[in-house]
């Protein structure tokens, strides 16, 4: 255990996890509404959403912070995981849709008579869970293989990923793709036969998201503290040197790129039943850029930073889009500029700076940032 994190960090992780995954759900379920300690479903849904975002930020940190590959299409993998699970949710509606048909409403509306072949497995939860992993994973693997093999790097890679998610968005907007066009999927009723809007189900999804975030953190930490993690940072700093040492960096990049896509896809699958809708706007280029901003604001190459960044930026977004909806994008842009100029290492860098100023040794923070527990 201490191979991954120092004991103090483990305690902090467990404290945060206990609060998020145990205390809040209990206050939601066990304390009656109206009581001052009651946590409303609004907060459970909001934080559940944030935890899904946090996993995507974590995935972003693996590929951008550690490996130096700036993906501006990470939202695509998130959305694909979401769509894969959304198909199952659509089938779970059964005959309770507006048209009382066996087919999902949008298909009735399009006058389709039967399910397209790629919807065949959507009734099965097992198949759906497989698809949640396989769809983003396969796309990332194939796309990554060709992109990395052609040695596409830096800003070119960012632009291509951006184009990829944009193209996917346009495709999903089309009604005849069979994914509900611009309305996407919504009006979900059940998961595994149980009502989706019940407090118990909501709490279960929330707790699952929390556990998933915790697991993703440990897996990411395991990856970056392994020798492979040191190879990834070496790819970021000096890729050609590493190739010269005999590492076929293509496969290392492909590994971390696919891992990040799968992590994001699963997060998307947990996200969709909590927010109750998935549509092509999740694939919009702006969404993917926001993911990069979460990571940058929190502090790249720290794992904790991007999680923090996802919570902080989305917290600000939730407040801002209610208070000053028209100014949110300006604020986001400003935030990005300021962080880049003043806090190149994000909130984590700021915290470290404050600690050193207070005279505490920076050693541990450094340990967390980069290191690789000494093998």
């Amino acid at each position, binding site marked *: 255990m201490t191979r991954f994190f120092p004991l103090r960090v483990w305690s902090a992780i467990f404290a945060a996890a206990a609060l998020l995954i145990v205390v809040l759900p209990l206050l939601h379920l066990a304390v009656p509404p109206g009581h001052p300690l009651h946590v409303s479903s609004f907060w459970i849904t909001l934080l559940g959403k944030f935890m899904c975002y946090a996993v995507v930020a974590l995935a972003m940190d693996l590929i951008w912070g550690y490996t130096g590959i700036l993906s501006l299409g990470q939202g695509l993998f998130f959305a694909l995981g979401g769509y894969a699970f959304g198909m199952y949710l659509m089938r779970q509606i059964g005959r309770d849709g507006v048209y009382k048909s066996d087919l999902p409403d949008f298909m009735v509306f399009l006058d389709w008579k039967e399910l397209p072949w790629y919807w065949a497995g959507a009734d099965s939860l097992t198949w759906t869970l497989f698809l949640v992993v396989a769809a983003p994973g396969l796309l990332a693997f194939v796309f990554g293989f060709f992109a990395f093999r052609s040695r596409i790097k830096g800003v070119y890679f960012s632009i291509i990923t951006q184009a990829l998610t944009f193209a996917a968005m346009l495709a999903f907007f089309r009604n005849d793709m069979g994914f509900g066009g611009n309305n996407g999927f919504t009006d979900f009723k059940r998961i595994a036969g149980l009502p989706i809007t019940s407090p118990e189900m909501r709490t279960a999804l929330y707790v699952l998201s929390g556990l998933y975030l915790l697991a993703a953190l440990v897996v990411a930490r395991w990856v970056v503290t392994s020798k492979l993690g040191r190879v990834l940072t070496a790819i970021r700093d000096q890729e050609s040197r590493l*190739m010269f040492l005999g590492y076929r960096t293509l496969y290392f990049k492909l590994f971390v790129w696919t891992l990040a896509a799968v992590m994001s896809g699963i997060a998307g699958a947990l996200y969709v039943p909590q927010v109750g809708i998935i549509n092509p706007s999740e694939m919009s280029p702006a969404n993917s850029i926001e993911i990069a901003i979460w990571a940058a604001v929190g502090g790249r190459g720290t794992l904790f930073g991007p999680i923090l960044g996802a919570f902080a930026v989305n917290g600000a977004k939730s407040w801002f889009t209610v208070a000053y909806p028209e100014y949110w994008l300006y604020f986001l842009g400003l935030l990005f500029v300021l962080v880049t100029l003043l806090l190149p290492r994000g909130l984590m860098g700021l915290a470290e700076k404050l600690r050193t100023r207070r005279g505490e040794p920076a050693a541990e923070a450094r340990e967390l940032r980069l290191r690789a527990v000494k093998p």
Partner: protein
Amino acid sequence: MSDRPVIHGLGGPAGAGYGHPVDPDRVDTSHGPILYLDDITVSFDGFKALNKLSLVIDRGELRCIIGPNGAGKTTMMDVITGKTRPDEGTAFFGQTFDLTRLPETEIARLGIGRKFQKPTVFENHTVFENLELAMKTDKRVKPTLLARLSGAQRDLIARTLKTIRLEGAEDRLAGALSHGQKQWLEIGMLLVQEPELILLDEPVAGMTDAETAHTAELILELEGTHSIVVVEHDMDFVGQIARKVTVLHEGSVLAEGGMQQVQANERVIEVYLGR
């Protein structure tokens, strides 16, 4: 099995008793030199960087290559390491590996280690991690993810740290080392790869006199156990380590022989040593 036994890579028949076990992953020097370049020509936009260059390095040899700027020294290194493909000529590593065909990473894996002119260590990694990354191991993804250092590997790193005078500095970030120390770390990164052939491109460029002297000691320590090719401008340094010197000029070999022999060669004096 075919009834005509075939020696790997040669495609010719092998008579009974003349065969020897050939490991397809090891360089085969049982019948000749470790490096064999013949009639290599490389041109860039009509300019011949290498012009019918021929060079033979024996196993265990320490060879210095000198020559004025633009003589083709670096291009020659690029051909040997697969970075540049020659337009003509043959380049063999041992008897079996055709350097004009193999990809760069494969050549590195087979045991040609190169130290670049400019030190390119991983600055955000510690000295220890630099050596760990460079070490000769299975460098595919899964073994790397699950890698743990064995006792023998730790010993190798400890020995190397001693050779390159960085004992006690293993936890320092490589970016914080002095220029000379970075050069040594580079050499250390070559040594842990246990290469068959070491190419050193200007190993003492920018070093202090003391650092240069130590580098000479270090290289002489390696002589015999390793085959080494040193490209260098610094004639004092070459004088300290040279056994056999090859002088390049305009992409081909101008002279070859002992240091004094070469220094006495009139054409060499004319084009390079001057006066």
